[in-house]
């Protein structure tokens, strides 16, 4: 046990002399969280839109004004013929074109059906889908309002769904994304840091020196792990603070549980890094292995970007092997739903098992004697 203490002390002394590390531990997570917090949003705002108003009536101007005022669309220009739309979409100056045909106002006033045309740039299918949804909803509510004011439509449909959205009533993407980014930032920082831990000593030649001392393997691993775990805890506090304080993500569940689960998660991230450290020969190798074999697949398959439910059935089982998957469910559960261990215990157990397994593997992999 005394050897572990000496190992930890040495590790801290080395860390203190490494100014790069300060950046990795404190600045990088904050910077990533700030940038991704703003950038990683699936909300679509201010979609540039070009309009062709062939009707030029009070009603057509009213519809255009509603688009413009919604906040989701921004009317960038108004052209006189449909042929001119092409140029706007080709050059990307507009994502969407709204065409109001001549006689639109007349037909609306007469109570007959009137149609407007919406042309959208489908290059970015996700955003276009969302924008089209907004456009559909906007036109529908406008139609209802028109019908009600003229008294000619059915004010109340026969069957109506009374929709309420729980946990995130305004359906903003940020409260959903920020906990995910938090998990991602912790994963990147902790895995990268600990993947350097043993391989750095390999490069320096000090590992061989340690191998001829009575220092046991587990003493080396624990001595390396604890300092990084402490740094990781500082990061947890930091990113949770920014998520709640700056991005105003509601923390509905218990903070103690959040912190506790983050510790278990840190264990898996650090264990994974250590494992990479034992199978790599140079720091560069460790870096590449971490990034390509672990971080990238984890980001894509964890449900952070793409919903697991939408993945092909063959791929879905793979996601169970990814610790980030469990932590995402735990984080989003605690943040948005305010649920506790009574609901989250399967995920918590899976995460803990994963952490213990990878740490055992890392310890077994790093032998003092070469075969």
């Amino acid at each position, binding site marked *: 046990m*005394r*050897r572990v*203490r*000496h*190992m930890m*002390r*040495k590790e801290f*002394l*080395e860390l203190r*002399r*490494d100014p790069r590390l300060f950046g990795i531990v404190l600045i990088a997570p904050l910077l990533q969280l700030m940038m991704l917090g703003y950038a990683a949003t699936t909300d679509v705002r201010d979609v540039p839109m070009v309009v062709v108003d062939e009707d030029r009536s009070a009603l057509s101007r009213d519809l255009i004004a509603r688009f413009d005022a919604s906040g989701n669309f921004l009317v960038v220009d108004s052209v006189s013929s449909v042929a001119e739309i092409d140029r706007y979409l080709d050059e990307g100056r507009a994502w969407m074109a709204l065409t109001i045909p001549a006689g639109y106002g007349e037909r609306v006033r007469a109570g007959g059906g009137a149609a407007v045309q919406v042309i959208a740039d489908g290059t970015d299918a996700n955003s276009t889908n969302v924008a089209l949804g907004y456009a559909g909803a906007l036109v529908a509510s406008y139609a209802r309002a028109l019908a009600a004011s003229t008294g000619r439509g059915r004010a109340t449909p026969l069957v109506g769904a009374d929709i309420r959205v729980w946990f995130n009533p305004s359906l903003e993407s940020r409260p959903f994304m920020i906990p995910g980014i938090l998990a991602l930032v912790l994963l990147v920082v902790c895995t990268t840091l600990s993947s350097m831990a043993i391989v750095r000593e390999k490069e*320096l*030649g*000090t590992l*061989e*020196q*340690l*191998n*001829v*001392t*009575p*220092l046991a393997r587990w003493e080396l691993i624990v001595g390396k792990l604890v300092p990084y775990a402490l740094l990781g805890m500082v990061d947890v506090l930091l990113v949770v603070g920014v998520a709640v304080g700056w991005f105003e993500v509601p923390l509905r569940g218990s903070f103690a549980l959040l912190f506790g689960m983050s510790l278990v998660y840190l264990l898996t991230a650090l264990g994974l890094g250590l494992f990479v450290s034992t199978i790599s020969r140079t720091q560069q190798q460790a870096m590449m292995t971490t990034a390509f074999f672990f971080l990238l697949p984890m980001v894509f398959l964890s449900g952070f970007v793409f919903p697991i439910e939408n993945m092909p059935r063959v791929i879905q089982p793979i996601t169970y092997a990814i610790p980030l998957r469990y932590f995402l469910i735990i984080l989003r559960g605690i943040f948005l739903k305010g649920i506790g261990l009574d609901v989250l215990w399967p995920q918590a157990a899976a995460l803990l098992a994963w952490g213990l397994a990878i740490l055992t593997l890392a310890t077994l992999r790093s032998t*003092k*004697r*070469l*075969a």
Partner: protein
Amino acid sequence: MNTIEVRHLTRRFGAFVAVDDLTFDVGQGEIFGFLGANGAGKSTTIRMLCGLLRPSSGTARVGGIDVGSDPEAVKRRIGYMSQRFSLYEKLTVDQNIAFFGGIYGLSGDRLAARRAFALEMAGLRGREGALTGELAAGWRQRLSLGCAILHEPPIVFLDEPTGGVDPLSRRRFWRLIDELARGGTTVLVTTHYLDEAEHCHRVAIIQAGRLAALGTVPELKQVFAGRPILEIRAPRPVDAMRLLDTLPEVEKTSVFGTAVHAVLRSAETPPGEVAARLGSAGIAAECRVVAPSLEDVFLDVVERSA
């Protein structure tokens, strides 16, 4: 009693045999030199003796313990210093000593005494707070040795300890090794500096993983008994060498600095005769019999075992 006993020690890497059937003993307080070209198997042997590498076959007992079956027990009894600089460069001199002392389980008065010893030995008293990475190579090397023997191990392994160090520091380093051995510590050291081997009580010459020669330096030089070595100084040494190679009296030649060494087949051949032969070929040469150096021995042994 022998401190190190090696019997038929062999290490294979795939089909390549790095260490081939080594057998030797090292006594207590002995400085035992391992001499060989790069890749001859010196480091592989030392790594097996330290418990860093598993022997493929054969046995080695270090301090009475079999390294094959209990390498961890061996590690408590040895000090090891490799050719690679093995201290933490970002730690100060004192922090390195404290760390390695702690790993070896030293504390309190014993640690204080050993720290003073290591500082004294490395000549670093007063520079305890200096960053190790900023020390000159000679100091770092002595500090490495100091850290490797903080726990006063009875056996010390040094794997090319003087690589990349200036001659003056090398000399100081060897004085330290002499002192250690006089204090009863067994030292096994590998080197490819032949002048360093002269400090060793006994020398083993390793060639392609095999033990090519073993003995004290005077014993090793006995291979030249009855085969005198002529040192020939001539203005055109290459021409002289070509001519010498054609003489029936000459066994072989090699270049030594600006001179040529010629091994004669018989002690009967007078040096003047060789000089006369060179003179008749228009090469004014100075010939004299010299005592064999370890380099002569090394080249001879390597050549014959190859």
